[in-house]
């Protein structure tokens, strides 16, 4: 990390923040702050949706995931295009017709204020905590690989975001996200080019794919029907559909992105853009990880990628030195075999596979030894792989650009989250229960203040996240615990027109209690369920109990109203 990298990184970040604040300096009304005065076209909406979803951890973890377990993760996104279509057909027209600011606002018009407040509260809790982890996750990786101060990194990411989200609101978020996506994709394309450049002379892209395929990394589609298997074609098409329906249809941090469209048509086109581009984009990011894997077949990878996170002296422990010697010998033999690799001459492919298996076992063994001597060591190091490659193989200047990619991704997601948290707090709680006056200047001030408050809270969570390993797990699971309930309520609202507020509210409570019970049973290992199932089960329970209650307990009340 030389001075030129610092110049590139700081210039990129400061110019984005300045641009977002400057372009929105004249905004002085609440609608502009929360919905961008309905001025966005389809390309801004589409990029904004993608930038909000893609956080820093997307660009750090996804290549690492491909490195460890191949391309199969792409199947997770197969439910997304259908979710985009269902939202375009059923969700969007209603949000537009009622001119709502938040998704939860619609629920009061359809059911009652209790249902609205309950779902909005679930959103605020899960998204408010998640915003902290959006900042913490990249900060911990950056700080350990670059030897930066963790707390300063968290405050830096959060502070930059607060600056332009408080001054410019929703429109500043969308405008900056457009540029952030440009930097992210440009940086990733350059990284891809330099990964290929790091191969030996006789190995190109197609030989690289061939090597990766022979080492089992190109199993993109898994047709296994075992529900315990996390990434299969079927889990992607079903579990992925429900997850993306919840996320894009009912999570305010996404809903807010497309409610700011000029017309219904522009918003729909934005969703179509996301449906078309998302899978190819994820495929490309995974492919970068595969190419890093191939590069590390010729350039010896460190035996573990997160050496800096353990306090053991790795170079003076005889047991570890012994494992590393074997690891080096295996790598050297494998590298010699692969150097004579061409697609026509795949000699020794079985020997290469055996050696790769040995190399992976030695790596796992090395981690186990560290774990036995260092309680605090986290053996999962796949999030560190891509950045390790960047820091060791990219030329000066490009390292700064790739760090700007990581920061841009963290900031674009955090900005979308803070903006949505502030608008939900303003519209669904403050203007509903605290101040019903129409003093727009005051409402705008409150909304800005709330944006800053959520930002400070997110930074606070990021600062303490490192102290409680369980907190991070809790935040990651919290979204999937609440999503089923929220989606169930929305599906009741759209498709079961005879169900009223009381039945929906009690149905939502029943669904939520049941999902929490299921999660408790999973934690104590009585049942075994993947987190994607919570979503499906939760929404079904809400719908079933809502319909059942409406047609039995509350049946009389509907008739007496007529």
């Amino acid at each position, binding site marked *: 990390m030389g001075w030129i990298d610092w110049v590139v990184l700081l210039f990129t970040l400061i110019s984005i923040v300045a641009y977002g604040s400057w372009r929105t300096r004249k905004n002085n009304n609440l609608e502009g702050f929360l919905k961008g005065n309905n001025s966005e076209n389809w390309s801004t909406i589409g990029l904004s949706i993608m930038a909000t979803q893609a956080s820093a951890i997307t660009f750090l973890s996804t290549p690492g995931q491909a490195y460890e377990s191949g391309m199969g993760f792409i199947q997770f996104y197969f439910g997304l295009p*259908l979710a985009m279509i269902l939202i375009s*057909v059923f969700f969007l027209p209603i949000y537009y017709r009622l001119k709502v600011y938040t998704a939860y606002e619609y629920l009061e018009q359809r059911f009652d204020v209790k249902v609205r407040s309950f779902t909005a509260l679930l959103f605020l809790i899960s998204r408010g905590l998640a915003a902290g982890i959006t900042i913490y996750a990249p900060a911990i990786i950056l700080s350990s690989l670059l030897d930066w101060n963790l707390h300063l990194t968290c405050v830096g990411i959060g502070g930059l975001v607060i600056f332009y989200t408080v001054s410019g609101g929703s429109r500043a978020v969308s405008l900056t996200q457009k540029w952030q996506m440009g930097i992210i994709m440009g940086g990733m394309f350059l990284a891809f080019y330099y990964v290929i450049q790091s191969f030996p002379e006789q190995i190109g892209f197609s030989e690289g794919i061939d090597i990766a395929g022979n080492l089992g990394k*190109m199993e993109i589609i898994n047709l296994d029907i075992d529900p315990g298997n996390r990434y299969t074609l079927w889990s992607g098409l079903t579990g992925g559909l429900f997850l993306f329906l919840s996320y894009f249809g009912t999570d305010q941090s996404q809903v807010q992105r497309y409610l700011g469209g000029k017309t219904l048509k522009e918003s729909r086109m934005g969703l179509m853009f996301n449906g078309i581009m998302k*899978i190819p984009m994820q495929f490309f990011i995974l492919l970068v990880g595969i190419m890093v894997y191939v590069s590390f077949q010729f350039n010896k990878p460190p035996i573990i990628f997160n050496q800096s996170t353990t306090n053991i002296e790795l170079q003076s422990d005889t047991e570890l030195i012994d494992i590393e010697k074997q690891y080096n010998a295996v790598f050297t033999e494998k590298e010699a075999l692969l150097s004579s690799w061409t697609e026509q001459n795949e000699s020794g492919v079985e020997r290469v596979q055996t050696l790769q298996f040995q190399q992976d076992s030695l790596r796992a063994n090395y981690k186990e030894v560290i774990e036995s001597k260092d309680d605090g060591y986290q053996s999962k190091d796949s999030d560190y792989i891509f950045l390790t490659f960047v820091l060791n193989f990219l030329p000066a200047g490009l390292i700064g650009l790739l760090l700007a990619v990581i920061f841009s991704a963290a900031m674009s997601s955090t900005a979308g989250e803070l903006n949505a948290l502030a608008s939900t707090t303003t519209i669904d709680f403050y203007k509903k229960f605290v101040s019903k006056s129409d003093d727009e200047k005051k409402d705008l001030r409150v909304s800005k203040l709330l944006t800053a408050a959520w930002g400070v809270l997110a930074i606070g969570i990021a600062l303490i996240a490192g102290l409680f390993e369980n907190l991070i797990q809790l935040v990651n699971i919290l979204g999937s615990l609440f999503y089923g309930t929220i989606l169930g309520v929305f599906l009741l609202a759209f498709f079961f027109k005879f169900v009223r507020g009381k039945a929906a509210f009690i149905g939502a409570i029943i669904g939520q209690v049941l999902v929490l019970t299921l999660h408790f049973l999973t934690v104590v290992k009585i049942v075994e369920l993947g987190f994607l199932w919570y979503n499906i089960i939760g929404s079904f329970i809400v719908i079933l109990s809502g319909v059942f209650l409406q047609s039995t307990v509350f049946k009389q009340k509907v008739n007496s109203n007529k």
Partner: protein
Amino acid sequence: KDKTNWKAWYWGLMLFLGVQIFIYILITNSY
């Protein structure tokens, strides 16, 4: 005034997904 043929967009999007999955299956089966 929205004259967009949304049905064609929706079917086109699902067709594009199908084509991607088809190509991915071909790649998976070639190793």
